[in-house]
C-alpha cells in the first residue's frame, strides 16, 4: 500500500471502513510526518497526544456510519477549539484557551474527525503570504523560502506536505483559494451563510466564510458536506436545503454554461497565467461545457472596495482585544494607557495598519466618502454577477495573478501584496461560492490555479465542474520532502 499520508481523504475513509487500517495508525502516520516537518512551521499548537488517545478510543468503539470515521484533521488556528489554545496567529491571543468550540469544527468532531493540531495563519487572517503571523513564516513545501499563500498558509502547507489529510481554512478575500493555488491543492470558499461563523475569530464579518481545503475535489465535497450547516447561533447563517455534495458529485457537466469575464484579463498579467486560463477553457469545453464571453464591468473596483469594507469591519471586530477579558495585557498607568500599550504590543504591523485604515474610513467626516461609497460599489459588483448569472451557470477565471513568491519579496509593499487577491476578492464581496483547483505550473514549476465561481448556494455545480476539469487536467504536485531531516 502507498504511504498512508499520501492517501486522499476518500481513500482513508474507505480503508478505515474496510478495517484495512485503524484510526490510530492513520493518526500516528500524520503525527510522525508532522514531527519531521517542523521546518515548515505549519503548526502553531499540536494536539498529537490527545489525537492518539482519541483515535484509540475510536478504534475500540468504531462507528463506521460517520462521515469522517476516526480521521485526524488539523485546522486553521482561527477556529476556536474547546480547551485547545487558539491564537489567530496573534500575540494578543498568545495564551488564549477557549472553553467553547466553533460550529464548523464541532461538525467535524461530530462526524468522527479528531483534532490533530492548530495550523499557522496570517495574524487575524490579514495577509496573503502567512508572513504576518506572530508565530513566524510558513514554508511552502513546493520549494524552499517560498510563501504558502495566506491567510490559510499553515493549512495549505500542511495539506500539500501531507501533514493532514484535509484541512479547513477561512476565506475573507481569497484566504482559502489563493494558498490552495500557491500549493497545488484544492480550496473551496462556500456561499456566505453556508458555514456558520460561530466560534471563528472574526476578521470581516460580512465577508468571512469557512471552507474545505483538500488534495482533490472529491475530498472537498466530503468535507463541505460535513461543515456546511444551518446554525441558529449565527444570524447570517442561511437555512436552505444543502446537497449531499459528495454523493451528488458527477462529471457530467454537458451543456453547462461557463462564463469568461473579459475584465479578468488585467494589465501586467503574466503570459503563463493567460495561457493557463486558455488551457482551462479548452478543458472545460472538452468536458462538454459551453463557453460564453461575459462582462463583469466593476471588477477593477473590487479591491479598493474590499480595502475599505474589510478593514472597517476589522477595526471594530478587533476592538474586543483590549487586555481586559483574555489575551495579552501590557502594563499601563491608566486604563487608556493600558489599552494603548496592549494593542500596540499585541498586534503586528499589518493588523495595526488595517485597524488604522478601518478606523479612518469610519471616522466622522469620512464615512460617506469611503465606507458608504464602498457599500454602494459592493452593490454594483454584486449586480454584475447577478446579471452574468442570467446567462451562465458558472464563471472560470485564474485564481491568482501570479504563482507563489519568495518570503520577504512583497512584505514591504502593502499594495502589491493586496493585488494578490484581485481575482478572489470579488467573489467574497458578492458572497458567492468559489473553488481553486490546481491547473498547471509556471516556468519555475510552481503551481497555478484556476478558479470556478458559482451561483449563490450552488456549490454542487462548482464542485461538478471542478471534478470534471480535474480529471482532464490531471495535475500532480511534485514535492521532494526537502524540508525533512
Amino acid at each position: 500500500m502507498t504511504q498512508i499520508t499520501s492517501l486522499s481523504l476518500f481513500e482513508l475513509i474507505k480503508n478505515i471502513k474496510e478495517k484495512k487500517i485503524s484510526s490510530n495508525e492513520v493518526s500516528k502516520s500524520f503525527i510522525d510526518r508532522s514531527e519531521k516537518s517542523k521546518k515548515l512551521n505549519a503548526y502553531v499548537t499540536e494536539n498529537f497526544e490527545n489525537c492518539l488517545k482519541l483515535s484509540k478510543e475510536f478504534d475500540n468503539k468504531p462507528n463506521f456510519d460517520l462521515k469522517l470515521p476516526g480521521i485526524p484533521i488539523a485546522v486553521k488556528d482561527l477556529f476556536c477549539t474547546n480547551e485547545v489554545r487558539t491564537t489567530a496567529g496573534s500575540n494578543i491571543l498568545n495564551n488564549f484557551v477557549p472553553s467553547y468550540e466553533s460550529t464548523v469544527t464541532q461538525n467535524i468532531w461530530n462526524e468522527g474527525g479528531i483534532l490533530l493540531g492548530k495550523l499557522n495563519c496570517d495574524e487575524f487572517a490579514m495577509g496573503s503570504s502567512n508572513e504576518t503571523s506572530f508565530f513566524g513564516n510558513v514554508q511552502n513545501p513546493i520549494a524552499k523560502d517560498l510563501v504558502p499563500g495566506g491567510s490559510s498558509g499553515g493549512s495549505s502547507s500542511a495539506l500539500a506536505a501531507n501533514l493532514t489529510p484535509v484541512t479547513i481554512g477561512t476565506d475573507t478575500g481569497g484566504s482559502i483559494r489563493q494558498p490552495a493555488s500557491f500549493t497545488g491543492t484544492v480550496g473551496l470558499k462556500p456561499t456566505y451563510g453556508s458555514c456558520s461563523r460561530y466560534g471563528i475569530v472574526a476578521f470581516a464579518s460580512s465577508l468571512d466564510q469557512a471552507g474545505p481545503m483538500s488534495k482533490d475535489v472529491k475530498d472537498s465535497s466530503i468535507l463541505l458536506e460535513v461543515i456546511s450547516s444551518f446554525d441558529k447561533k449565527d444570524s447570517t447563517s442561511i437555512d436552505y436545503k444543502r446537497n449531499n455534495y459528495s454523493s451528488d458529485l458527477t462529471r457530467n457537466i454537458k451543456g453547462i454554461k461557463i462564463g469568461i469575464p473579459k475584465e479578468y484579463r488585467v494589465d501586467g498579467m503574466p503570459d503563463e497565467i493567460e495561457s493557463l486560463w486558455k488551457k482551462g477553457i479548452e478543458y472545460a469545453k472538452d468536458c462538454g461545457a459551453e463557453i460564453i464571453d461575459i462582462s463583469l464591468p466593476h471588477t477593477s473596483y473590487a479591491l479598493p472596495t474590499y480595502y475599505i469594507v474589510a478593514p472597517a469591519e476589522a477595526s471594530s471586530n478587533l476592538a474586543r482585544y483590549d487586555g481586559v477579558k483574555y489575551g495579552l495585557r501590557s502594563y499601563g498607568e491608566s486604563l487608556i494607557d493600558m489599552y494603548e500599550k496592549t494593542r500596540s504590543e499585541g498586534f503586528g504591523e499589518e493588523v495595526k495598519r488595517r485597524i488604522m485604515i478601518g478606523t479612518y474610513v469610519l471616522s466622522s467626516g469620512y464615512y460617506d466618502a469611503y465606507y458608504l461609497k464602498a457599500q454602494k460599489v459592493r452593490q454594483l459588483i454584486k449586480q454584475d454577477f447577478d446579471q452574468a448569472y442570467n446567462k451562465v451557470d458558472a464563471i472560470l477565471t485564474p485564481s491568482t495573478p501570479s504563482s507563489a513568491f519568495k518570503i520577504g519579496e512583497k512584505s514591504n509593499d502593502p499594495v502589491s501584496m493586496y493585488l494578490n487577491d484581485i481575482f478572489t476578492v470579488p467573489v467574497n464581496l458578492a458572497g458567492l461560492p468559489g473553488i481553486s483547483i490546481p491547473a498547471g505550473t509556471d516556468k519555475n514549476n510552481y503551481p497555478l490555479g484556476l478558479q470556478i465561481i458559482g451561483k449563490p448556494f450552488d456549490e454542487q455545480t462548482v464542485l461538478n465542474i471542478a471534478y470534471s476539469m480535474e480529471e482532464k487536467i490531471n495535475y500532480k504536485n511534485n514535492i521532494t520532502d526537502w524540508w525533512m531531516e
Partner: protein
Amino acid sequence: MDGIMSKKNLEYLIERNDNIYEVVIGLEVHAQVTSNSKLFSSSSTKFGAEPNTQVSLVDAAFPGMLPVINEYCVKQAIKTGIGLKAKINNKSVFDRKNYFYADLPQGYQISQYKYPIVGEGNVILDMPEGQKQVGIERLHLEQDAGKSIHDVDPSNTLVDLNRSGVALMEIVSKPDLRSPDEVNAYIKKLRSIMRYLGTCDGNMQEGSLRADVNVSVRIKGSTDLGTRCEIKNVNSIKFMQMAIIYEANRQVDLIEKGEEIDQETRLFDTKKNETRSMRSKEDAHDYRYFPDPDLLPLEITDEFIDKLKSEIPELPDDKKKRFIDEFKISPYEATILVSDIDTAKYFEEVVAKMGKNRDMKLAVNWITGELFAVLNNKSIEIAESPISAKNLAKLINLIKNGTISGKIAKTIFELMLDGDKDPQIIVEEKGLKQQSDPKALEALIDKIINDNREKAIEYKQGKEKLFGFFVGQAMKVSGGKANPQLINEILKKKL
C-alpha cells in the same frame, strides 16, 4: 395643546440683570426592557445577582461569539412605541457604536443609529395648569454596558458584566420640556405608560430607568436653541431636577459674563450638587457608527405590529377619560388614580367589589386619603397594601349602608391593617355596629335630657351652642355607635 403653558406664574424662568431666560430641556431616557434574557444573548437579566454570574460568552465578547436577537425585546420596544403613539418602522438597522471602556467588552455597543425601530410620537403631561404635549423623537433598542466599580479597591477598578447586553430602550424626547417640574411629570408619565404595558418596571433604584439630560438656555421669547450640554446618566428624578437647576444657572452665568458655552457631556456630582465636564471621555468622542455586519436589518410586518396593537391594554390617558365618564370623578382625582398601574388596578377592584350601590366619592377619598397615608408611612407600594381592595370595598359599603359611621370606620380601618381583617367580622366581634334604631335612640336621648335638665332649659332660652353638647353626650353614651344623623334629628325634635 401646542406646548405652551397657560399660566405665566408657573413657568420656570431665570432672571439675571434685566434678562429673563427660559430653559430648554430634552431627555434621552434609558429604560430597561422587561425580559427574561438579554437582547442578544440567553443569559439572565435578573437584578442583584453575584458579580459576573449572569455573563455568557457573547456578553463578555469572546472571540467568534455572535449576537442573536431576542424576539420578546423587539415586541416590547414596539409595544412601547404604540404606547407613545409613535410610528413603528417596518425596517430598522442595528449599528455598532464604537468606543473603548472597561465595562464595554465588545469595544462597541450594538445600538440603532440611522434607522431606529420606533419613530416620532408624543406624550401628554397633566400639569396643574393644564395638559401639555411633549414630542418623542424616536425610540431605539440597544445593549446596556456592564458596571465599573471604582470605590471598592483603592488602586483598581473592578468590572462586573452582569448588566452587559441587557436590552435598553432609548427614548429620545424633543426639546419640549421647560422646567424641572415638567421633567418630573414627563418621567413619571413615561414610567406609567411602560408599567401599564409591562415593558419596563421603571425601578429607578435598580437603574431600570436613567436619563441623559440635555439642557440649554435662551432669552425668553427667542426661538433659537442655545448651545446644549448633555448631563449623562442621571438615575433619579430629584437629581435630574437638581442637575437642571444647577446647569441652567451655570449657563446663564456664562452668557451674562459674555462667555461661550461649550457643547459637551457633563456629569452630575450628587454630593456637591453640581455638574462638571467629563474630559476623560473627550478624545474618544468619534463613535464611528456603522451597520453591524453580524446582524441583518430588522424587518417587521404590519401583521406583526397589528397583533401587538391588539394586545395593548388600556393606557393611562384612556383610563383617565373613562374614569371621569363612567365613575363621575374629577379630572384631578382621575389623574391621581391612573398615574400608576397598580393604583388604578386597586381602585378598579374596589369599585368592582363595592357592587351596585357603590359610592365613588367614598372610594376615592379612602384610597387617596387613609390608604395612601398608610402606604406613605410604611414606604410601601400599593401592590403590597396591607388592606386588600376587597376588604376596603367592604368597609366603604358598611359606611354607605349606615352599618357604621365614618368615625368608627377609621377605627376599623386601623384594626384591618393587622392581617387584612374582614371589616364585617371586626364590626361583629367588637360590636361596633351603628345604632340606627330610632326607638332606642329616643330612649337614650330622653335619658340624657332628663339628666341635664338645666342645660336643656338654657338651650331653649337661646344658648344654641349647647346642641353640640347633647350630640357629644349621645355619642359618648352609645360608645360612638349612635347614628349621628338620627341623633341630630331626634335632638332637634326633643329639645
